[in-house]
């Protein structure tokens, strides 16, 4: 391995690599954000929705969770255009990942809410709280703590899934790296480097999750 030559190439390619990294982070951030917001509603519908609503949403999550992310990405890019919805690769990718994320977050939220003992709702009712109040002050905060570790996991999965957008031509970190490799033939070095960057992102997410967990821990 020729380290000086690699560093030389790395320096030359710093701008496209940084851009790629920026795009990867944006994709991950946006899809986690949108997916989480959607997912909370999915979880609420699964837990408290009327029967028909539950069935529809259950179908949605089962279908999405049973489909490979790559298929979702390809579908939102190629299939949507055939029915007249023309999304750029970036938008299509965000859409696919958000939907994927929402079905996972939905399950997390449902699980967390259902794990709260029934007595909590009853105690809240008994002091005269309405359901929205019960949710905001009693159930929500407990579900949040419960779901946090799994949510961090999902967030890390989304970062990894963002690499799939290279297939539809989004110039994120992996695609930039591949372009660089086809020019320099330093595949080992640059794949390693890209892998390292993904690790740094995910490690930061995990540390951040731990930090929030510690901050919100209930003393006992």
């Amino acid at each position, binding site marked *: 391995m020729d380290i000086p030559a690699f560093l030389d190439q790395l320096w030359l390619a710093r701008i496209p690599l940084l851009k790629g990294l920026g795009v990867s982070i944006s994709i991950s951030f946006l899809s986690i954000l949108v997916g989480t917001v959607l997912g909370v509603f999915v979880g609420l519908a699964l837990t408290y929705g009327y029967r028909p609503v539950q069935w529809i949403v259950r179908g949605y999550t089962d279908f999405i969770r049973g489909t490979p992310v790559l298929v979702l990405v390809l579908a939102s890019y190629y299939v949507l255009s055939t029915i007249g919805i023309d999304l750029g690769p970036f938008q299509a990718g965000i859409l696919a990942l958000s939907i994927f994320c929402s079905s996972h977050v939905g399950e997390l939220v449902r699980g967390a809410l259902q794990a709260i*003992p029934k*007595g909590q709702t*009853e105690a809240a009712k008994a*002091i*005269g709280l309405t359901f929205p109040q019960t949710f905001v002050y009693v159930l929500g905060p407990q579900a949040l703590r419960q779901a946090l570790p799994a949510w961090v996991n999902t967030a890390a999965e989304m970062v990894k899934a963002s690499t799939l957008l290279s297939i539809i031509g989004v110039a994120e970190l992996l695609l930039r790296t591949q372009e660089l490799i086809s020019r320099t033939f330093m595949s080992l070095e640059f794949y390693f480097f890209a892998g390292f960057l993904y690790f740094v992102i995910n490690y930061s997410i995990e540390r951040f999750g731990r930090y929030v967990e510690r901050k919100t821990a*209930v003393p006992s």
Partner: protein
Amino acid sequence: MTQTLLEIRDLHKRYGAVEVLKGVDCTMAQGEVISIIGSSGSGKTTMLRCINMLEEFQGGSIRIDGQEIGYETVGGVRKRKKEKEIARQRAMTGMAFQQFNLFPHMTAAKNIMLGLMKVRGMGRDEARSVAEKWLDRVGLLSRIDHYPGQLSGGQQQRVAIARAIAMNPKLMLFDEVTSALDPELVNEVLQVIKGLAEDGMSMLLVTHEMRFAYEVSTRVIFMNQGRIAEEGNPKDMFVKPQTERLAEFLKSSSFN
């Protein structure tokens, strides 16, 4: 006789095909302390839970202070009241549970303050001082900023009682509040309830503590298979039960 506080008429409750309350009638005056005893499955807890609409019921009526609880009949059709109205009616009663059900993510003070602020509309400072008053009353002022996980079972139950009573309910419901406690912690909770009884609080207690029911109640109700089988003042009930079923029940219980 003082003013009627609670009036239950022909209460029927079904879970599917199983009828657990088969027509319960009960009237309670202001300031009464009524213990409901009976073996498990007799419907005593269910009856208590109907009073604050934690259970739906299919027939009969419950009135507190003249207000019909949970349902209204409009044009001959019985329907459930609006959720908001039911929440308001629930605030007329306070309830303490077997499993305490404190909110684990809130301190003792916050547990009490939540209802005061969100239901009674108090400001933070006022709510805090009410919480202090009641925690002091149950002997836990020093634990005001502790979380439930940092308290013993008996202490948790006392906080839970303070949370209910701080709302200034017209009627307190106690659902087997000592059943989940270690024997040595039972007494501290019973002492709190006794103190409330002496203050003239109207209370309905579902309990297995026969000795306590005997000492604290103005009246005892014995339930059997979804009906009130016998009622009267504690002395008569415990010393010379009228029905064979009650005599049998007392023999098998701890009271002797």
